[in-house]
């Protein structure tokens, strides 16, 4: 009886993940077989042409995405961790309002932020630059990060902070040597999501960096499709490579991912 359910579960997962399988399959398909009917269900006469094209053409895009992703993580942590410590433990006057503003901020569509950023970036000269893109991408993560950190830091026992204070540690010292190390898990969760969102971003990249010399991988794929060269094995190979961070994230940090998804939506 139990195995029945596992079997159904396997079939459902198979159906759900078929597009992912198909992406991998197409990435190995030869150009000549691409429009074959019926298509090859398995990459039997596989080719690495697509991946060779990625190595030749997409490495600059990938490294830009890496830099933008890491920069976004750094900026997000820098801004959100101290704020969350304050909201959770220091009871600032007006803290409630700020928390409310952050909830609202999460709901503003990226495409609208992009238009405002475009106007500002154009006049300040940061249009088409990596720092500009990092700033824009961080707006995807900062509200979420503050909310996650606040939820976590509220759970740190008051006695722990009191003990530090008794030993003569100031507010900053307590934050740096006690609160941050204890919050390691939430730092990992926030960093993973911030990186993934920056890595996946298309809205800001296509509006704020469309004329840049350094473009992220999402634009790399977009140009591939737009060029109409119909090299679908190369497009799909790039897509496979671009999915690697998400895969790593799922493998090494599965429980953090599920925690992150539910944290915004369900109270404990």
């Amino acid at each position, binding site marked *: 009886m139990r195995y029945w359910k596992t079997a159904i579960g396997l079939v459902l997962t198979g159906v759900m993940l078929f597009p992912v399988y198909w992406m991998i399959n197409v990435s190995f398909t030869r150009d000549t077989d691409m429009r074959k009917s019926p*298509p090859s269900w398995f990459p039997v006469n596989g080719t690495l042409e697509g991946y060779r094209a990625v190595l030749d053409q997409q490495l600059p895009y990938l490294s830009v995405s890496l830099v933008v992703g890491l920069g976004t993580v750094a900026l997000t942590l820098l801004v959100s961790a101290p704020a969350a410590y304050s909201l959770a433990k220091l009871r600032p006057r007006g*803290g409630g309002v700020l928390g409310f503003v952050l909830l609202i901020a999460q709901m503003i569509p990226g495409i609208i932020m992009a238009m405002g950023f475009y106007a500002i970036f154009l006049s300040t000269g940061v249009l088409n630059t990596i720092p500009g893109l990092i700033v824009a991408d961080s707006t995807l993560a900062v509200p979420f990060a503050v909310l996650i950190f606040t939820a976590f830091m509220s759970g740190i026992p008051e006695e722990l902070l009191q003990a530090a204070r008794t030993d003569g540690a100031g507010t900053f010292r307590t934050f740096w040597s006690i609160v941050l190390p204890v919050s390691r898990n939430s730092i990992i969760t926030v960093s993973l999501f911030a990186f993934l969102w920056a890595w996946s971003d298309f809205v800001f990249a296509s509006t704020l960096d469309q004329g840049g010399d350094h473009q992220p991988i999402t634009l790399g794929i*977009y140009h591939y499709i737009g060029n109409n060269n119909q090299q679908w094995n190369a497009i799909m190979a790039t897509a496979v490579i671009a999915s690697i961070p998400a895969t790593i994230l799922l493998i090494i940090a599965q429980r953090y991912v599920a925690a992150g998804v539910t944290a915004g939506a369900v109270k404990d």
Partner: protein
Amino acid sequence: MAARTRSGQWAAWAFLAPVAVYLLVFYAYPLYRNVELSLRNYTVRSFVQGHAPFTGFANYIKIFGDATFGPALWHTVVFTVVSLAFQFGIGLALAVFFSRNFRLSATLRALFLVPWLLPLIVSASTWSWMLNSDSGVINVVLGAFGIDPVNWLTSPDWSLWSVTIANIWIGIPFNLVVLYSGLQGISPAIYEAAALDGAGGWQRFWKVTFPLLRPVSAITLLLGLVYTLKVFDLIWIMTKGGPSGSSTTFATWSYRLGFGNLVPSFGPGAAVGNLLIVMALIFGLIYIRVQRRQAHT
């Protein structure tokens, strides 16, 4: 509380200062610029040099009268409602299924997260190729059942359905995970009591699971609604809102006005964007209200 002292307040706000400045500079200011864009008549030249004439609500009147307005509104509603209905229905069914812990259930549930984690451009381009009229695998499978090939992305009758299908696929994991965690919160004792009273599986779902899951469901749907209103990348990459506007929503319309043409019309683009913000905020505020009320009970 010691932190309510004056020096405590100084320290508290010193830690809050970065995020407060950040919100002002990188949220409030872009939004303010966006409102300003929508109230002036910007051209490419005045966009760079400034001094665009103030025109009040002219841009708004223009977009309300635009031939695209009606269809875009209708597409936004259809896209959102159909996406939500299927994401929620399928997500709930899967959550109930996965909550019967069986061998491999945790691993398979984790695998279901993959579509949600993939970059949208990856999902969108994969679906584009799968839905290709001539060589797409979907038409091949349909052909095996004797169904004629469908022009998924190139026919005005089907483009909106194509992007909706892809969006449902992307949204299922979120619904599954949140509803699953909601199910975990229902005490097994209640099910046992229902079983003792002779309730069958189907009855248990409708009489126990469904009512008890209502708070989590409300939150899932509202949050899903706010997310779905924002969807832009997926539609733009798959169809660019076409053919002939048949899959244009407010989000893609706004982008096309501002960035998609050779001669950008920033004013009307910003105006459409602000309408979208208002829609998202209405449902966002309802969401916050519902969540607050649940936190208090």
